[in-house]
């Protein structure tokens, strides 16, 4: 007996492949968001009570000098033109000059960003490796002591100020116990010993084969990375648990059991497989959150990353640096969000 599948047969095919259209729309969406972002930073820069001209020329400049700089900064032009010029500069990678370092902001940021990336990457790694199994276990053994511990871990993670916990960590593990290295990325005498390839000392020293520096860098990064890792794990474990609970009560799980599948296979091959894609979004968001969390963490550990760069700039009223840093972190955020969206669409067979 022949039975037709009415759903897919006979449906008119689209005249052209759909993915270029979707890619275009996504790019357009990113561009629109970035535009808005830049507009906000641009406006913040214009709102300041500090006179940007005076910041450049100083108090005792002559009126002519003031006028010159005023025109050079483009402040005489209408706002929309100024914004356009700003956009042009940013597109070329020009984020202005830093008052503090007297170097281009983009150069400064290129120098400090890898330090933050190293921290955020390690922290997210810890969060995933510890958080996912914890979340799965908490869901599978709902209500048990593991579940309660996971809940407490998450609760503390959502309630504890990160800079305070970092301070306590430094006090206990460095000050009292001496188990880890202190503030900074490496001990002073190792500074600059390893050629900088990626800007991440762990990677660079491994590439160079210099294991002494590697171990030293490790002892310095372990505490801040664990700190960020804790917050990452609190979030990831909570989300994993929530997703798993949803899947474990689904019918297909019963089907798998009816087939005679063992419980471990049911959990990992069936239920977990359904949340993989959602977890990618969670990990991306967690990474973004750690980039943000590093702002406060880096001060505590004297970690020369973008967070410390922005706060130092803040305290010195170096607006170009602050806004430049904001733009870069904002861009990283947007890219992470888009990446997770794309991966979601790519990996979930239902989204096709």
């Amino acid at each position, binding site marked *: *007996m*022949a*039975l*037709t*599948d*009415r*759903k*897919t047969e006979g449906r008119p095919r689209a005249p052209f492949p759909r993915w270029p259209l979707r890619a275009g729309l996504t790019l357009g969406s990113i561009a629109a968001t970035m535009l808005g972002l830049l507009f906000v930073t641009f406006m913040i820069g214009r709102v300041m009570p500090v006179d940007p001209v005076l910041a450049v020329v100083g108090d005792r400049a002559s009126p002519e000098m003031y006028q010159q700089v005023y025109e050079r900064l483009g402040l005489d032009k209408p706002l929309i033109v100024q914004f356009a010029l700003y956009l042009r500069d940013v597109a070329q990678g020009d984020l202005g000059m830093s008052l503090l370092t007297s170097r281009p902001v983009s150069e400064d940021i290129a120098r400090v960003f890898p330090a933050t990336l190293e921290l955020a990457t390690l922290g997210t790694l810890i969060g995933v490796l510890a958080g996912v199994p914890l979340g799965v276990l908490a869901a599978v053994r709902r209500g048990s002591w593991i579940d309660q511990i996971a809940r407490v871990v998450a609760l503390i993670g959502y309630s504890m100020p990160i800079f305070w916990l970092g301070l306590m960590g430094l006090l206990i593990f460095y000050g009292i116990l001496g188990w880890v290295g202190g503030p900074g990325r490496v001990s002073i005498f190792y500074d600059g010993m390893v050629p900088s390839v990626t800007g991440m000392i762990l990677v660079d020293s491994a590439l160079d084969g210099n294991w002494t520096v590697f171990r030293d860098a490790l002892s310095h990064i372990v505490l801040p990375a664990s700190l960020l890792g804790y917050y990452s794990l609190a979030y990831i474990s909570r989300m994993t648990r929530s997703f798993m609970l949803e899947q474990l009560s*689904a*019918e*297909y799980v*019963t*089907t*798998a*059991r*009816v*087939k*005679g*599948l*063992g419980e471990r296979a049911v959990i990992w091959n*069936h239920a977990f*497989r*359904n949340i*993989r894609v959602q977890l990618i979004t969670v990990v991306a968001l967690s990474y973004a959150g750690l980039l943000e969390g590093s702002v406060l963490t880096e001060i505590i550990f004297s970690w020369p990353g973008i967070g410390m760069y922005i706060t130092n700039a803040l305290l010195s009223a170096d607006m170009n640096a602050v806004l430049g840093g904001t733009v870069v972190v904002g861009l990283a955020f947007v890219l992470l969000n888009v990446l997770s969206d794309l991966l979601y669409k790519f990996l*979930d*067979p*239902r989204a096709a």
Partner: protein
Amino acid sequence: MTDLLDVKDLWVRFPTRTGVFDAVRGVSFRLGRERLGIVGESGSGKSMTGRAILRLIRPPGQVEAAHIRLDGENLLDKTEAQMRKIRGERISMVMQDPKFSLNPVMTVGEQLIEAYRLHARGGKAQARVKALEMLEAVSIRDPERVMRAYPHEMSGGMGQRIMIAMMLLPDPDLLIADEPTSALDVSVQGQVLQILDRLVQDRGMGLVFISHDLNLVAQFCDRVLIMYAGRVVETCEAARLHEASHPYTRGLLNSLPRFDAPQGRLEVLRRDPAWAETPSVGPDP
């Protein structure tokens, strides 16, 4: 007829905040290589009975019975590891809605192959061949394409046929069908039932057909069990259903419209709380 399945005094209880809820209360029945229909409304305990047989009910649910015998062996005495061998290989279950009962992120092929390899030796290649054969047996026209597809790409009827194929692949002796056609369009229901009918007959399997549709069960099964509030209120042969005596069954029968005996007004089923109190009718005839 030797018994394939022998259930005696089955109770399924769930502790809730307001006391213990008895979903199944003292149900008993016997089944050979024939078709038994279990009919009841929502909440009558019919689905729970099916799941209890497979020992799928997990704590805090509690399952108690004098025995649940499959070919003479009491399933309640088995360890979980032993049950896993029995599930799929000797008893299988087809569920209501393939939209939910098939894993959305695995291809149909992967799920079929898994069902086969859990209980048979042989590599992936052989499993694949068997899976294709099975898909053809359930009248799927382009089995290669279906193997590569995902469940959400299938229509309801197709999905249910895939479900049936998957559950019959390991060649079980007993099949429990829990509302297998309730989620399907009426036009497709008949086709799926025909396939089920043919396969069960060809393999000489026992079938427990759970449904709320009395007419359907009466046509499809050899014997019928009527459940109400966790108890069996009546059992009879399907052919003799119109001779049923229990007021609940009569109420169900009378509330269905009939072309050959039009009524001015359809009877409304009146439920007597006493029906829930009387003990279950035992396995018979």
